[in-house]
């Protein structure tokens, strides 16, 4: 009977022959382990971090961002702006080929921009567009309803990239495009997507290199130097690390900061600190007491010891965090400023207690929500709780899963929540947090002075004046505290030393990388 049982089991196992397609082995394959899965790969339709990275390999925009986060041309040969700031005329580079063999024309740009305005995840940024005209096959004109200084930045922003795709595929497409229709002009083309498992990109042999500038940021002279990139989904961090150590992958994204020394000690591996990565913030609900009172918000901002919180988040690894007041990272040289440094991380408990008393806080416990799906958000909440209690708050820490936290925030059934805000290459990317009428106004914050500076930043075309406006907005941020900035957090990636030419940036880039 035992043998019969075993025979049945063995037979059952033997019957499980499956037919998943085999992946052809190209000569130079770069294998990358990722921690994220995407619901769709359409560059217009999502703002996810890993989608930005994928999009910048497969697609290109009219313009993009350079190493210092300034705007540089990409598919545009040049552009000029009318004196009233209402018309942008782009000359396109000639002879640029799509992955399907078609040559790029102004009609493709028109169809892509029009679809982006209507359906994209970032359509609010380009709402000023009135019309797009294909003037001739290599000239396209975009007319705006009103002058918008942020416009070129909005076109370059890789957060939901305004990718140029063939007119026949992108025109009027309301839903995310299927992989077969995701055709771009980038150095790699998408060849296969096994959902939740693997994305395969292959070198595009007819890629039109842009040799006007050396490689910079997401543009310049880019070249696919490996034949294939396999982006393999490995959700468990320890398994990503083990796969890298074993040599099953060449690059592992987001491993635990505690693996830093281990990677450093390995002869064949390099630790890479992804800097900037994200900033940790405490979102406040200003719709109800106590945080509808600015003094209660200031009490949190002035009383917290940000260093202690960031040590808790990173497991005491100082290489993985930085304390600085700005919403822009110092790497964003064009936009970074020091406003607020007098009040950021002052850890003045006396002042905080006084402010809290003046706010009229009635001692009702504040609902502080976090989640454990994104572990660092939870690790940020743990040290914040006793610090808030030291200021005088009573705290009800509620730990959810990620969807649960989003739901609770949307229902406004919270007072404070841990959040992450990733790099915004274009400053208007912060508007959703602070602007009256923007999505986060549901959290009750709307300030006319803040709005004034955000509007200047939106309208003015001169980059220096824009940067000044955002510095003033940052000053107002520390005066009115719509949310509390805790600190900048970095992420640890690991790479094989066999990988040559890899340069750390805020997004991972595998062009100009050899193996």
């Amino acid at each position, binding site marked *: 009977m035992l043998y019969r049982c075993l025979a049945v089991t063995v037979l059952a196992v033997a019957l499980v022959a*499956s037919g998943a397609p085999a992946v052809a082995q190209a000569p130079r394959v770069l294998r990358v382990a990722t921690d994220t899965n995407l*619901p769709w790969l359409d560059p217009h339709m999502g703002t996810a971090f890993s989608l930005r990275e994928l999009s910048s390999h497969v697609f290109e925009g009219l313009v993009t961002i350079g190493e210092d986060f300034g705007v540089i041309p990409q598919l545009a040969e040049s552009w000029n702006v009318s004196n009233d700031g209402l018309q942008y005329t782009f000359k396109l580079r000639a002879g640029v080929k799509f992955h399907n063999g078609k040559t790029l024309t102004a009609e493709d740009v028109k169809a892509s921009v029009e679809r982006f305005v209507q359906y994209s*995840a970032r359509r609010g940024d380009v709402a000023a567009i009135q019309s797009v005209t294909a003037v001739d096959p290599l000239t396209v004109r975009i007319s705006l309803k009103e002058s918008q200084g942020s416009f070129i930045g909005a076109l370059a922003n890789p957060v939901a990239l305004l990718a140029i795709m063939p007119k026949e595929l992108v025109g009027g497409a309301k839903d995310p495009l299927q992989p077969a229709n995701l055709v771009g002009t980038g150095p790699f083309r998408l060849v296969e997507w096994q959902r*939740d498992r693997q994305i395969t990109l292959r070198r595009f042999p007819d890629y039109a290199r842009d040799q006007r500038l050396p490689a910079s940021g997401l543009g310049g002279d880019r070249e696919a130097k490996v034949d294939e990139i396999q982006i*393999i989904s490995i959700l468990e961090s320890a*398994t990503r690390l*083990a*796969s890298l150590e074993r040599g099953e992958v060449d690059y592992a994204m987001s491993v635990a900061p505690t693996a830093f020394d281990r990677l450093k000690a390995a002869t064949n591996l390099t630790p890479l600190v992804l800097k900037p990565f994200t900033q940790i913030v405490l979102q406040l609900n200003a719709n109800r007491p106590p945080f509808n009172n600015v003094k209660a918000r200031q009490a949190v901002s002035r009383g917290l010891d940000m260093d202690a919180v960031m040590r808790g988040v990173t497991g005491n690894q100082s290489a993985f965090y930085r304390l600085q007041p700005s919403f822009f990272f110092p790497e964003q040289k064009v936009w970074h400023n020091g406003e607020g440094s007098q009040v950021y991380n002052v850890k003045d408990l006396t002042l905080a207690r006084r402010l809290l008393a003046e706010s009229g806080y009635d001692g009702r416990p504040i609902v502080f929500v976090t989640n454990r799906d994104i572990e660092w958000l939870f690790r940020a909440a743990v040290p914040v709780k006793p610090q808030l209690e030291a200021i005088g708050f009573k705290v009800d820490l509620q730990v959810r899963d990620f969807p649960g936290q989003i739901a609770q925030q949307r229902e406004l059934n919270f007072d404070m929540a841990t959040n992450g805000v990733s790099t915004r290459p274009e400053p208007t990317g912060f508007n959703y947090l602070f602007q009256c009428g923007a999505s986060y106004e*549901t959290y009750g914050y709307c300030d006319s002075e803040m709005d004034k500076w955000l509007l200047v930043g939106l309208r003015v075309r001169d980059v220096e004046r824009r940067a000044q406006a955002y510095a003033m907005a940052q000053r107002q941020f520390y005066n009115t505290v719509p949310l509390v900035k805790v600190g900048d957090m970095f992420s640890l990636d690991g790479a094989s030393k066999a990988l040559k030419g890899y340069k750390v940036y805020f997004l991972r880039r595998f062009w100009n990388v050899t193996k």
Partner: protein
Amino acid sequence: MGQYIARRLMLLIPAWLIMGIIAFALIRLIPGDPAAVLLGMEATPDAVEQLRQRLGLDQPLPAQFVIWLGQIAKGELGKSYFLGEPVLQAIVNRLPVTLSLAGSALACAVLLGILAGMKAAKRPNSPEDLTIMALAILGLSIPDFAMGLGLIFSFGVALRWLPISGYVPLSKSVAAWATHLIMPAFALGIVQAALLARITRSSMLDILGTEYIRTARVKGLPERAVIYHHAFRNALVQVLTIIGNMAVILLGGAFVIETVFNLPGVGNLVVMAVKRRDYPLVQGCILLISTVVIVVNLVVDVLYALVDPQIRYG
């Protein structure tokens, strides 16, 4: 027997309906909006609303339930929000992985568990018995993720004997399929083996103390025949029950091992579906798993009759 099986299979229909209602209600009781999860924390409220409409989430709950029942009546389970493919296809795509893993873990558990349990029962309280039972307690106490990671770092990274992660279909390479499954099957099977060893031992000890075993020995049967032909066959009824339960656990609950070894199986699919609030996929998976439970129990009941001639169904 045929009638009995048909009757039991008919029971699937009300079971599906009840499970369907429970699955539908349960996943919606957990706070979280699929559209908000898909679009992320930075999505504008109007974008979320637009997606809710596209997914049909703006309809009242009873209407959503009726639509879903209608789909089931047509033999469909709806479309996964996150994966964008039919639920049935998503599950079927992952079945080979789960069946491979569950099958090999079960083989590992049955082989190790029964042999160890019988060996221990032969000489109760001997050093051999005590060692086996101590190992069984150890096997039950080590959490599966710790066992998995321990195996990965020793046999994958340090010794480089076995591949660490991923799944290779049997059709592509039998050798690669097998080497990718050894560590996860062992990590998953060892806990079950420990449990099975303890159950086998105690069942065998009960039976070895009965009069008919004494009679068998007195009439001069060789010990081998006593153990395997008389004692084990009777102990098997209880062991089969445990194996049936194991099959269910291994088919639906291998999430941790699937994650650690990066195996895209059904357990992983279910947990990710819950985390993403992928309602159609959660509902589909619950229906599938409840079907597996019912069918496995039926198979076990039929096997009882084959093992023990005293058991008859009609």
